[in-house]
């Protein structure tokens, strides 16, 4: 599975780039190798098929009777999967079967983007635990908007994402500019903080970048900036490795010479 996923995700990107929408294309190319981006296309979406699909009956595991014996499983393999079946597909597959050209299924918006959750975001987005609900909230949302669903709802989802970020921004900024007093500590330590643990992945990155600027200033105040640091902290190990390598090759050469003799 893990072997297959990046491939399928990238094929999704290719088909996206073939579409005429230039703005989304340039955005997608930017994130082409981004692991976060690939991961955010793995989220599952509840779908309902509109057509019969032959030979895919085995996908419908739980739907068939649980008492299935071997014969039944064999027959399931070649059986068609019928329309109106409800299944969960990863985003990258939904993207292919559920756009304006290929309308093979309908899908349900993920809970985090549904109307009831959108109202919570409008009320106060700062208290929502994005990390728990959708660790790649913004990326996932941006992907979802490429799917084919109601235009008004689409707009509402997009506006919700924007205002969510704008509202939550102040918290992120305040945190990244304030925790520096205990400088030198690992940024990862703060991930257990009760507010920072609510940030989604992008927000955490933003927080870390803000912190880096302030840690730099902290170093300035402590007169640590002038200390010359060797480029690449593991410089010694590299030279050690080189030594090992040369030792190895000379030993090998000697052995070869011995064998020749």
């Amino acid at each position: 599975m893990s072997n297959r996923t990046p491939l399928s995700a990238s094929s999704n990107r290719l088909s996206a780039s073939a579409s005429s929408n230039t703005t989304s294309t340039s955005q997608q190319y930017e994130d082409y190798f981004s692991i976060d981006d690939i991961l955010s296309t793995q989220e599952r979406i509840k779908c309902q098929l509109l057509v019969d699909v032959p030979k895919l009956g085995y996908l419908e595991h739980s739907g068939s009777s649980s008492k299935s014996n071997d014969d039944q499983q064999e027959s399931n393999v070649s059986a068609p999967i019928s329309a109106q079946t409800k299944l969960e597909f990863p985003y990258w597959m939904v993207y292919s079967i559920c756009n304006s050209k290929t309308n093979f299924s309908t899908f349900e918006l993920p809970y985090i983007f549904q109307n009831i959750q959108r109202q919570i975001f409008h009320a106060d987005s700062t208290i929502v635990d994005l990390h728990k609900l959708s660790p790649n909230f913004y990326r996932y949302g941006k992907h979802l908007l490429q799917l084919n669903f109601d235009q008004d709802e689409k707009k509402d989802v997009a506006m919700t994402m924007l205002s969510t970020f704008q509202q939550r921004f102040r918290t992120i900024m305040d945190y990244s500019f304030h925790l520096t007093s205990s400088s030198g500590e690992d940024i990862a330590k703060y991930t257990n903080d009760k507010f920072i643990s609510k940030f989604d992945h992008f927000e955490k990155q933003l927080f870390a970048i803000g912190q880096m600027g302030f840690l730099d200033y902290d170093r300035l105040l402590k007169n640590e900036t002038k200390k010359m640091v060797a480029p690449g902290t593991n410089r010694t190990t590299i030279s050690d490795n080189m030594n090992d390598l040369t030792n190895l090759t000379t030993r090998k050469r000697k052995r070869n010479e011995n064998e020749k003799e």
Partner: protein
Amino acid sequence: MCKSLFIMDIEEVQYLSENEYVSIVPNFSHPVIHLIKGSVGPFQPTTPLNVPLWMAIHLKESHRCRFICPEWLTYDTISTLLKAEQQNEHFTPMPNRFIFILSQTIMSVALEDIPNGDNIRLIMKDLWDLRLAKLRTSIDSLIKSGALYAKVTHLTTVEICLIRNFLKMALKQIYQLQQVIPDE
């Protein structure tokens, strides 16, 4: 200010700040030294002259000179600046675009040459905190407004350096989120 666009991190800001001139009083004599940026000297004992900060630091560390406190680093100047900053809603112009970094460098090298140095350090910290609070408020309102650019004046290089990457990332996110809003 356009030079500051090329400054990457705080080390480079500090490096560039050391090109600023300061006045020192040497205790040795030496003919003029010709440098790429200009000639320095001649050095005469007890005669004040302007040298680049990096040279001043070097001379000070080998006990060959003493600093003359720059005009912008006196207690009176800084407290006037602080008052102006408190009264003004916007940023007020600083006497030097490297002021925070220079004061830090000078006071770490030659604290004894700066009269009232410890108090200046305190008041500088107040000034910094005040400006930072203003900076945070204005960044927040920029993000909330959804605009992708804003005109800022009188920011010092360190302040720009601090927020550059952070703001860049946030603004990019805003831009991308605005792009995906479907048109009517």
